[in-house]
């Protein structure tokens, strides 16, 4: 990799990190929150009346910042560098420095797809996110997300499960060296091993609320298009689509039941004209146009015994517990066997607690209706 980040850019990054508490207020005050980060250093410094931040800014030591990044195992690219991701320059407020754990080359792909959505959704949302992560990886398309709980993690895990997947990218609100939430520690390690984890903030930084929104503009900025899998009407993931739209990048959404508040946001996007995503192929068509690979990505559909079909239908209708699937105690043994059979075929999955849900694995043979 080329030269390290320059002094000025590192100084600006440290300034923004020091001002984080004040930026929370500024961000909400302005109607266009991203305007805050496009302010020049002098204007930012003025946000702190006490002058403490100004003094720290003047006394900033770039060599210490570089040493800190090195100790945390992070590379730093600044926007003055030629290998700074071109797509991010389209933002009004591109990050001064990108701190990167893992392979910086992963940021150079022009065909990356962002998969985002609610932290708290349904098994459906997680299933689809994971399946899209796998499917896009199998098709050679890199996947980007925020490593948050819920849809982000499910998408990343789908990528990690797929052998020979293109390097995944995660953009974090805090320091790239910190696994946040802590439950993502293992995923964090896997993402660094297989791809890269990026942040515009310094190592060790703990994100404030505005950082999570700010990070979404980077997700939108680095991706060729953004797919929202599941979102309530007020989900934070919708800010990512706002940014994508501002950048003129396509926004796609996965439909959900109209009765489910967890899909109200995604359905709203669809009503406003977002592209529909039913499977990986829909995403590939938007991404690659007419040269998208033909539908023969998955093996041909296979027939399934009527008994298993009935069980699958019941699960699709939402009856996921053993008690709901067999009202006759005498039939329980066979149902247990059938459920394991369906699970081994990749057609159902067990949630935490033992409920069965319909699995979506585009790479497994589908069943004929």
């Amino acid at each position, binding site marked *: 990799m080329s030269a390290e980040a320059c002094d000025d850019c590192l100084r600006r990054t440290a300034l923004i990190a020091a001002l984080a508490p004040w930026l929370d207020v500024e961000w909400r005050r302005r109607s266009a929150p991203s305007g805050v980060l496009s302010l020049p250093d002098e204007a930012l410094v003025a946000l702190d009346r006490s002058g403490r931040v100004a003094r720290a800014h003047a006394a900033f030591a770039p060599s210490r910042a570089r040493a800190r990044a090195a100790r945390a195992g992070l590379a730093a690219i600044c926007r003055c560098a030629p290998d700074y991701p071109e797509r991010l320059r389209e933002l009004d407020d591109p990050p001064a420095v990108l701190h990167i754990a893992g392979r910086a080359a992963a940021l150079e792909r022009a065909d990356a797809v962002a998969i985002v959505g609610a*932290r*708290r*959704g*349904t*098994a459906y949302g*997680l*299933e689809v996110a*994971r399946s899209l992560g796998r499917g896009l990886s199998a098709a050679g398309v890199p996947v980007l997300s925020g490593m*948050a*709980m*819920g*849809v*982000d*993690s*499910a998408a990343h*895990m789908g990528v990690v499960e797929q052998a020979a997947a293109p390097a995944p990218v995660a953009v974090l609100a805090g320091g790239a060296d910190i696994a946040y*939430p802590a*439950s993502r520690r293992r995923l964090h390690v896997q993402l660094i091993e297989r791809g890269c984890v990026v942040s515009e903030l310094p190592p060790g930084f703990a994100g404030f609320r505005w950082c999570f929104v700010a990070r979404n503009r980077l997700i939108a900025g680095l991706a060729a298009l953004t797919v929202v899998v599941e979102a309530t009407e007020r989900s934070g993931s919708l800010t990512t689509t706002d940014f994508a739209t501002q950048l003129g990048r396509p926004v796609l959404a996965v439909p959900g039941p109209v009765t489910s508040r967890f899909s109200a946001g995604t359905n709203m996007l669809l009503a406003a004209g977002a592209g529909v995503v039913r499977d990986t192929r829909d995403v590939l068509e938007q991404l690659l146009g007419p040269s998208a690979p033909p539908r023969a990505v998955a093996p041909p559909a296979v027939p399934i015994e009527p008994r298993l079909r009935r069980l699958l239908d019941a699960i699709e209708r939402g009856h*996921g*517990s*053993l*008690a*709901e699937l067999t*009202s*006759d*105690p005498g039939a329980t*043994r066979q149902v*247990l*066997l059938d*459920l*394991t*059979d369906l*699970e*081994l075929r990749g057609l159902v*999955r*067990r*949630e*935490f*607690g*033992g*409920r069965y849900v319909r699995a979506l694995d585009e790479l497994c043979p589908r069943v004929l209706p």
Partner: protein
Amino acid sequence: MTIVRAQRVMVFPTRVTLVAASNPCPCGMGETACRCSAADLARHQRRLSGPLLDRIDVSVTVGRPSGTALRNQAAPPSACVRERIVVARERQTARLAQHGLTCNAQLGARLLRELSGATPEAHRALYALHDRSRLSARGHGRILRVARTLADLAASDAVRPDHILQAAALRLDDQSLSLAG
């Protein structure tokens, strides 16, 4: 039973059958009405540690019964079920008497392996499951033990792949995707 907590060791002179119940989330309002955030769910699920889940042999998810279900109570009376259990227990006693034991729970790992009556296909099914579900050695043994009991209930001296798969379906699978992501 021995419990070790906070540097104190308590020995209870009993054998134990553990029966537990839990809501899937703190609010307990049911899947469609649940208002728990991702953090709430994560905190709740963290209380069931891997090692604890690993020791639970049978888990059943119970939902809200519909009115129809309540009206058509189809469960057989306990007396019928008891008969089947007694027959299964007698099979176990017949098999284990020469070792001074009366039921499958008392089998140590070595005797379980020797006396399981698992067919080669059953062993293969269990090993396939082992890798797929990332079983621990304890989990592996427990599935075999439950399969042995299922075989007894089915009046079978041999443990077949069916019994293994049923036993596996009854366990909690901590590899499944939790709603907390």
